[in-house]
């Protein structure tokens, strides 16, 4: 145990990953499953080489990314001012929060078909679904974040005759940042799910969701796995990116 604990994290991750692949491989070999039921890692790797080689994987990934990123950005852009309003105005909160909470009770997957009826553009319908998925968790975190500045610091700013804008930029925003970034991390992974849901409901011709659906119809289970791994990689990369941003922006959270 002591020996294992002393090893660096990346090594442990590598070891567990290799172990996972090995277990998977053995499962397939011993279980003698059909390839379209459970493909082995070797099959998936071969399929990955094919779709990566002919450019299909990249093409569909880029399509999905082009929905994920605007979805996240738009969600953030709407959640920010709305969060500020809700955090600042008890009246606005009383008027709007019942609807916001009720809207969360309806699964997005159930709203998505409606969106495809209303929004004629396939692309924007998908972006909108991604936006819907990320919007709420980000909004909640923005509100909590904006409320996290201690009363003393507000009083300090008032005693120094700070303007509203100064209070926002020098107190509220930096105070909200840790919670906001935590929300963004959740939002980043959710946005991938959102775009995928959008592609399922509107599976026209392109995107990883489209690739997944067609692969399934054709019983190309190894291709399904390739898509899953790609989706995971995209979500993880976005999470990592926000984490890196967090590390930089919150470098003041030094451990004593």
């Amino acid at each position: 145990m002591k020996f294992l604990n002393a090893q660096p994290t990346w090594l442990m991750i590598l070891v567990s990953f290799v172990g996972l692949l090995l277990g998977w491989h053995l499962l397939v070999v011993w279980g003698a499953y059909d390839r379209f039921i459970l493909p082995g890692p070797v099959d998936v790797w071969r399929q990955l080489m094919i779709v990566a080689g002919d450019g299909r994987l990249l093409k569909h990934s880029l399509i999905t990314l082009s929905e994920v990123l605007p979805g996240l950005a738009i969600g953030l852009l709407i959640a920010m001012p709305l969060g500020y309003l809700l955090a600042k105005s008890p009246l606005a909160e009383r008027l709007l929060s019942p609807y916001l909470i009720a809207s969360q009770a309806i699964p997005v997957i159930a709203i998505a078909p409606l969106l495809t009826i209303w929004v004629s553009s396939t692309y924007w319908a998908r972006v909108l679904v991604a936006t819907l998925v990320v919007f709420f968790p980000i909004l909640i975190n923005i509100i909590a974040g904006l409320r996290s500045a201690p009363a003393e610091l507000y009083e300090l700013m008032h005693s120094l005759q700070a303007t509203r804008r100064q209070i926002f930029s020098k107190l509220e925003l930096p105070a909200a940042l840790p919670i906001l970034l935590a929300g963004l991390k959740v939002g980043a992974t959710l946005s991938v799910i959102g775009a995928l849901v959008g592609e399922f409901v509107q599976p026209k011709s392109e995107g990883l969701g489209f690739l997944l659906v067609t692969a399934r119809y054709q019983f190309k289970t190894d291709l399904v796995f390739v898509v899953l791994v790609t989706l995971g990689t995209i979500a993880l990369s976005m999470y990592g990116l926000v984490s890196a941003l967090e590390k930089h922006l919150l470098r003041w959270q030094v451990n004593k």
Partner: protein
Amino acid sequence: MDTFLTVERVDYTFEDGPLSVLADVSLSIPAGSFVVLVGPSGVGKSTLLRLLAGLLRPSSGRITLTQQSTGNAIGIVFQRDNLMPWRTVTENVRLPLELQGRNGLAASRSVQAMIDLVGLAGFEQSYPAQLSGGMAQRVALARALVHQPTLLLLDEPFGALDALTRERMGQELLRIWQAMPVTVFMVTHSISEAVFLADEVLVMGGDPGNGRPAAITHRLPIQLLRPRRFEVQGTAEFLEYAAAIRAAIQQ
């Protein structure tokens, strides 16, 4: 001495409750003096300090700043949560100047001078999380003084510190006050701290929680010679002042 600030028959009632905290509070603070307010917990000391800071408005009565010459900028130090954790020591101290739009070289010099004055040279780039409680309160003090306020308001600034650090901070505060033309109004729980620092000790009495709003019940001038050394705390004179204040609080 000229009067710096007068409080005339001020009442204060919190809007969100029928609780009347202060009733008929009157006092005057001489320019350049060091006034200390003591009183039991919950009596309304912080409320009075916030009124003086202009953070609250009196329900009735008047608060007048009589010395307008250098503007009426104020500096405040609270008992806790003073610093912005995302700013370094330098950035925290610079905040008041930044809010006034002063970002130039002169501003940087004032900031450095204040950091030196409170004895934190070498910690300019540290974040609050890396400082001890005493150091953090020094930063707050530097920030409260960097824009050269005419009034310095201190609400139990050393309340969270251990006894030794607290005594040292008191002495530092006296040294800084003597080096700057600033009027100090300070709230404290420590009677010996009050005697050691003050020109005048105000005692607040009442029980707003039980329907008896607070007022200033006693004012005791402290005529110990300045500069005051630490040893003065053992003298009979000092102990007499302390006993008088204790008696006044318990009345």
